């Protein structure tokens, strides 16, 4: 049980715990907070797997941006029954079975994957990622900016109060 494996198990246990809270907690705000925590752990995993630039951008975009948005909306939309009523509809048993089934099948499929053991030392990836994004992945990089623009406009159109 070397240290990295120990770290891995600890982090994954925490992350799964927080994700379960997200999915089952009655109080939506608490759910959002736990989602932030689990995203933090995802960033930790990215760092563990050598994506240092990735971990920082995950923190920046998800935790700093998307979660703030979700918390904003949760605050705007605080209906009184939001915190008392049962949060899952009556279908939670079939849902649990389906999710469990999918999870089990995936795990059964993934368990036996053998991967190379000796791996190159982790290198800082920012410069290489920069070259990649603006070199080979230049087209998707530009298209993504269009996607973001569309999302921006769409959000404005839906969100704005229309005086009609």
């Amino acid at each position, binding site marked *: 049980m070397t240290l990295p494996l120990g770290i891995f198990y600890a982090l994954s246990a925490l992350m799964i715990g927080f994700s379960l809270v997200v999915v089952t907690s009655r109080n939506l705000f608490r759910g959002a907070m736990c989602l932030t925590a689990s995203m933090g752990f995802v960033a930790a995993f990215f760092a563990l797997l050598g994506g240092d630039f990735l971990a920082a951008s995950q923190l920046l975009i998800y935790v700093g941006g998307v979660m703030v948005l979700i918390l904003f909306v949760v605050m705007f939309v605080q209906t009184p029954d939001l915190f008392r009523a049962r949060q899952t*509809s009556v*279908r939670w048993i079939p*849902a649990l079975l*389906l999710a469990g089934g999918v999870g089990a*099948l995936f795990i*059964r*499929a993934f368990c036996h994957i053998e991967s190379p053991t000796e791996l190159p030392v982790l290198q800082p990836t920012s410069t290489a990622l920069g070259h990649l994004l603006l070199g080979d992945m230049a087209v998707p990089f530009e298209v993504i900016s269009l996607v973001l623009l569309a999302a921006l406009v769409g959000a404005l159109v839906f969100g704005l109060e229309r005086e009609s």
Partner: protein
Amino acid sequence: MIFTFSMISHLFLIPILPFAAAFLIPIFGRWLPQRGAWLSIAAVMASFIIALDLLLRVGDGSLLLPHAVTPVPWFSVGLYEFVWGFQLDGLSLLMGLIVTGVSLLIQIYSLGYMSDAPRLKQYFASLSLFTSGMLLVVFSDNYFQLFIGWELMGLCSYLLIGYDWDREAAGKAAVKAFLTTRIGDLGFYAALLTIFIILGTFNFVQIEERLLDGGLSSWAITLMALLIFGGVVGKSAQFPLHVWLPDAMEGPTPVSALIHSATMVAAGVYLTARSYVLFSGSPMAMHIVSWVGGGTSLMAALFGVATRDIKRMLAFSTISQLGLMLLGLGVSGYSGSVMHMATHAAFKALLFLAAGSVIHAVHTNDIWKMGSLSKQMAVTFTVFLFGALALAAIPPFAGFFSKDKIIENIYLAHQPGLLALAYSVSGLTAFYVFRVIGLVFLGQPKERDRFAHAHESPWVMTIPMIILAFFAVSFGWILSRPSIFETFFSAPLHHAALEAAIPAWVMITANSVAVGGMGLGLFLYTGDLTRVESLARVFHPIHHFLFRQAYLDEAYELFLLRPVRGLAAGLDWFDRQIIDRIFVDGFKTIADELLSRRTPEEATASGERSGRIQNYLMIVTFAALVLLFWNSH
């Protein structure tokens, strides 16, 4: 092949100029004088001048026909290279001159005729677009490009017939014209495909070479020829598809003059002449062409006799003359019918314009309401008279030279039936033309109020008519001069003209029949009309039958349109009841059944609502699960 400006010989410019005008007018129309009319006239005039310049260069020998221009590459599909190719030979130069000339005169005429009409921009834009389409047909050197021009003309005829669409009749007529010509165009389209499949090229010259070096079964040539003839029947309003032309008179008269007399309908004859090598290759096709042509011309002439509307009379006369031209082509009288096409364009346009100026003055088409207009509208009367004489093929006028050639060819082809048919048609033509002259210009005024303020049309309308009148008189003589005849009407190379002696009686009967028809028409319909009433009572059933155009429209409605509508209704029922009922709703009920075993109403009643969105998500995940499980084994 880099496309440089010098490559555009000015031959290209002829169709391009009106095309450009057609698009500039709607954009800049508001600021142009007369809402863009002058731009359109200027464009057509420029094309006319270029055509004239080409004629002069042919005249002084510096340009020999047929003269091919280097094609401009357009796009290539597989091996075949589509090009914008233009070709100049006698036929295309002649038609180019006629089209640009007539279009120019008619656009000037419509300045006066349409002065108070709304949407002038759209009118002149469509006219220019039409002219460019026709010129594209005339000058193109391959079928594909010709087809583009062909479709452009169909579109413009729809736009122009339905010009004042607030009148319901005009709208219906436009749709009818468009659909009927479309049916014909189907034939032509099929011809395009078969030609490409069999011969592998669209270019006329290549087609001619591949046909001449033989090796092609006769049924293939006949098939191609007949399919092309389908397009011709549609566009030139021959027997089965002629119903749209009389209704097309709903459009303004200059439009009828240009499109439905001189150019578009003549395009069918032009197409037959252009693909003459195909037609002359299969005797069966020639036979069909001549009989269809002949039959149509007789039928139309009979209908012409019985109409009350001056423009319908001219429409029927156009159909009949076109039939005659096709008849001429059918009996391998190439030069005769091409010349007739040329002369007919001149005097028929003239007749239409004159009729237009009459309508403009008395505001009605019904010839029974008009009378003795010769005194008030002397110029229109004389011009109309010249046109009528040319149409009736009275010797010194244009019609005589071309119709006489056709009749000679019929005789040379030893077709007694067709000869009799030709004679009766020319007799009837003379009769119904002078019937109209008698009723409209010579007899007593039927309704005094119309007669009172009838006045001569403004100069802008009369001058084009006078120019056309000059041609109606002299065009036949000019064209039959040997030198001109040789350049314009020399039959395609391989076809040996049948040079045999023509007995005198052939021509004498033709002329006497024409003069007889003229006399009868004038005698009956001028002066007091008592004789006409007595005749009318005797021939009433026939007259009514002809007046209703042999109930052809009703027959089409009964035997064609009604079954099609019935079929459509049946299919709609089938789709709605069977397919929707079983497949679409079926799955929904199954899905609902599978999941909540309760319809939404029960669910809401019991407080637990069956959430639809998540139900469907459930199905999706379940399917994914099954797939995952299935392929992991």
